[in-house]
């Protein structure tokens, strides 16, 4: 393992210090792993978070028009309820708090416990759970689909709704509609190494790719030989389109997300194919984002997210936002 780090136990702490030094518009709550922006009490407050290792998520989406606070956990590990509770206490005004959680057993449990504690303190809290990863079969018998890069669309759109002054119930409804409309899938070309373990999360031969990868170095759903970029894009896009009710004439937003060690050039090559495929199906791309939004340390690979838009979601997606990793 070769990493640019000091003490492995200080990894998250030193990263958070580095973020606020580079971006003084963010503040770190003393003694916590919570990043907040200047408090705005007359709107619904948005709190999200998750394990570290997904940078720029989640701190990179804190700012006007998006999140009010992001809670960082240990590497690939959900933040703990006490930290989430600190975030809720710091940002809640008089309009309540919306928690945006990715669908993982640990994240859901920790955010739920924090929500229960905040409710006991008289703070009005709602929680939405993002499950955009179509690589995982949806079934009532399992925990359902994972939350991956499509979560960033939920941050953006719910953030705009909150900024517009909508009440908590409405912001939560809009967030849920966004979640229902966003579908994602990813592929890895090489694994990542969690600093504390020092070992790659899985083994891939030089000529293999892992289809249906998550964002924590966990193995995907199947392993296949490497093939041209267009074919890889088709594999992901076919599964996304099977699951998303997207038809000719629909408007969509596209997110081509690098997982940490994919050259931007390769992401653009992938985007070229995505645009061609959607044009063939007469689907209108209203907005395309290409870059790193939700990474998995130094994993090579990428994910595609498609968000089906309606009039209101389009308006909210285009509303102004000023954060480290998303500006519009």
């Amino acid at each position: 393992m070769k990493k640019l780090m000091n003490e492995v136990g200080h990894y998250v702490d030193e990263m958070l210090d580095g973020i606020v030094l580079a971006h003084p518009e963010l503040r770190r709550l003393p003694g916590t792993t919570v990043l907040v922006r200047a408090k705005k009490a007359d709107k619904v407050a948005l709190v999200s978070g998750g394990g570290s290792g997904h940078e720029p998520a989640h701190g990179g989406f804190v700012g006007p028009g998006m999140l009010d606070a992001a809670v960082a956990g240990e590497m690939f590990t959900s933040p703990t309820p006490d930290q989430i509770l600190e975030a809720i206490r710091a940002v809640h005004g008089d309009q309540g708090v919306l928690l945006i959680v990715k669908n993982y057993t640990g994240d859901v449990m920790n955010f739920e416990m924090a929500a229960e504690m905040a409710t006991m303190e008289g703070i009005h809290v709602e929680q939405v759970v993002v499950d955009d990863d179509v690589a995982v079969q949806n079934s009532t018998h399992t925990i359902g689909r994972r939350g991956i890069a499509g979560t960033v669309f939920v941050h953006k759109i719910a953030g705009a709704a909150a900024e517009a002054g909508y009440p908590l119930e409405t912001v939560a409804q809009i967030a849920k509609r966004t979640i229902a409309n966003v579908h994602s899938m990813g592929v890895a070309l090489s694994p990542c190494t969690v600093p504390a373990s020092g070992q790659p999360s899985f083994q891939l031969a030089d000529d293999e790719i892992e289809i249906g990868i998550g964002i924590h170095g966990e193995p995907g759903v199947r392993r296949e030989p490497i093939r041209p970029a267009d074919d890889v894009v088709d594999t992901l896009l076919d599964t996304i389109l099977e699951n998303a009710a997207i038809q000719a004439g629909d408007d969509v937003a596209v997110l081509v997300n690098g997982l940490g060690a994919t050259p931007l050039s390769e992401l653009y090559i992938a985007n070229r194919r995505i645009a061609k495929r959607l044009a063939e199906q007469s689907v209108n791309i209203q907005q395309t984002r290409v870059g790193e939004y939700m990474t998995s340390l130094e994993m090579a690979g990428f994910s595609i997210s498609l968000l089906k838009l309606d009039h209101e979601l389009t308006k909210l997606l285009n509303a102004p936002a000023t954060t480290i990793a998303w500006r519009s």
Partner: protein
Amino acid sequence: MLTTSAFVAFIQAYTNRLDELQPLLDQLDNQIGDGDHGTNMTRGFHAANERLTSTPTDDLGALSQTVAMTLLSSVGGASGPLYATVFLRFSAQWKGQSQVDAKEITEAIVQARDGLVVRGKAHVGEKTMIDVWSPAAQTLQENPTVSGLLKAATVAAEAAVGTRELVAGKGRAAYLGERSRGTCDPGSVSSAVFFEEFANVIVGGVEKTPWPTLVS
């Protein structure tokens, strides 16, 4: 009989075993999850151990509460809330008592099992810690004695090894479907070690299961 000093000794012994087994637990988790179960558990129980030695009390409920709150704030993931739930249930059961007998231990273990089911929403057979806690609690219920504790530790170890053949229905391993078969559930192994060390502190002379040769 579990006294407060035995409880503190148990947390110490369990922390030591976690130190030993951290690489194994991480390795198992690496195969079917995200590779940090050993790291997270070790961090949490070290914190709990430190907190216990710095806050002496003769109340088993208060000690359990301290462990629960420390785990909640230092473990993260799913293991944090789940192991915290175990100690929260112990705390409720043993409140104000400086020692408890096998019957009260049994009742607390059963309560902990029920708490895990509520928090984790998992059922038996889904390759989670419930697959260990459920048969162990049942063994104790049938025989709420010191020898029942020994039997529960044996049953727990067998159940943890048995999770190798299961397909995960909950937790991150569930995303692997059929590919989760063939690896023991790390949370089940850490749970079996829990029962082993617990029985050893109360009864003594419990043989340590050779986990690395058994499950890796």
